[in-house]
């Protein structure tokens, strides 16, 4: 009962918070910490990249998780630092979607590569995803403390999200659970294909 009581208010808060989001990276009215924490969840391209990478990492085994999750966290931190050093960060939606496409396509096929290949591929994609998330989630606040808080929160949020997804994929040992992971991979792949085709069309017109 207690868990239900805590789930509902948390869900209502999550439902309401994004309504104030009108600009990239800043969730108005929630403070720097929550703006940074929720950024990987409320930005669709970041969410897709992290979920797809998490599914891939999880199904690649525990040893891959041990390597890839810290890799993603390090890459997010590197991306955030890099973003603070450059004048203007390019739109990272397409790179994020590309990472999501590749990771989700591998998950969808259900193919099992040798462990070392799977580990390198998953870690490489996690690094790219992390770097792109870090660059994409660069805090827009001018205050140093606020930017630091927001950046740390983004690091926490993205690491927590990929850990949760990877743990779910890692524990998916029943047949229907593996199918569910493949269906999720298929939906992410299809969404990424549609977006990239859309980008191709809009960039050539």
């Amino acid at each position: 009962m207690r868990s239900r009581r805590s789930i509902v208010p948390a869900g209502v808060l999550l439902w309401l918070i994004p309504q104030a989001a009108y600009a990239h990276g800043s969730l108005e009215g929630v403070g720097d910490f929550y703006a940074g924490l929720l950024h990987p969840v409320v930005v669709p391209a970041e969410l897709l990249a992290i979920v797809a990478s998490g599914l891939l990492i999880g199904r690649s085994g525990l040893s891959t998780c041990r390597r890839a999750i810290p890799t993603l966290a390090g890459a997010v931190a590197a991306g955030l630092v890099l973003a603070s050093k450059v004048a203007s960060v390019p739109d990272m939606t397409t790179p994020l979607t590309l990472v999501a496409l590749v990771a989700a396509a591998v998950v969808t096929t259900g193919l099992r590569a040798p462990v070392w290949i799977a580990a390198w591929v998953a870690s490489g994609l996690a690094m790219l995803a992390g770097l792109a998330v870090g660059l994409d989630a660069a805090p827009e606040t001018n205050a140093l403390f606020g930017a630091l808080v927001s950046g740390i929160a983004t690091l926490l949020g993205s690491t927590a999200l990929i850990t949760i997804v990877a743990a779910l994929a890692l524990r998916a040992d029943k047949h229907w659970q593996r199918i569910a992971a493949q269906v999720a991979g298929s939906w992410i792949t299809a969404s990424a294909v549609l977006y990239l085709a859309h980008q191709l069309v809009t960039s050539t017109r």
Partner: protein
Amino acid sequence: MPSNKNRAVGAMIWLLAVSAAGSALAHAGADHGSGGFLSGFTHPLLGPDHVIAMVAVGLWGVFLGAPAIWVLPVVFPLVMALGGAFGMIEVPIPGVEIGIALSAVVLGLCVALALTPPLWVAAIIVGGFAICHGYAHGAEMPAASDAVSYALGFVIATGLLHLCGIAFGSLARWPAGKLAVRAAGVLIAVAGGAYLSGVV
């Protein structure tokens, strides 16, 4: 320890929160709010011809059994996305609207007659119609501003329609339920015929 029901409630709330965020964020486009998750999510749901065909795919999957019941929901969105890409880049495919209406007729009849062809035959039939449905919707997608959210909403809605079909089709394990599912197939075929003949 939270029960499975609580976990399911939590998961649904989380999904809804993310869904709401899709429409609120102005991340991917220059103009805000005209695209987004809800726009993409409602798009297939507001087209009855699309709805009945997607549900029919799920219903037929139940009659086809494993592995088709899970291969079709995995493969269909991918083929449909390919069709969507064709629609966006304007690859000429004749008779798309006829193909959409025909999909309801054919898939409805497959359900009504409880046909169980080999998997590759079913995959070709469903894949061909997936191209038509994807093409039609893909051609309309460039109007959306937040393309990632739109695409995600569109794909999830289509997948959920499949799941609705599978859920309803699972009634077929009982004799009366099998009759109800086959009757639904007849209704879908009749509705498809109405679209095909221009009555609707």
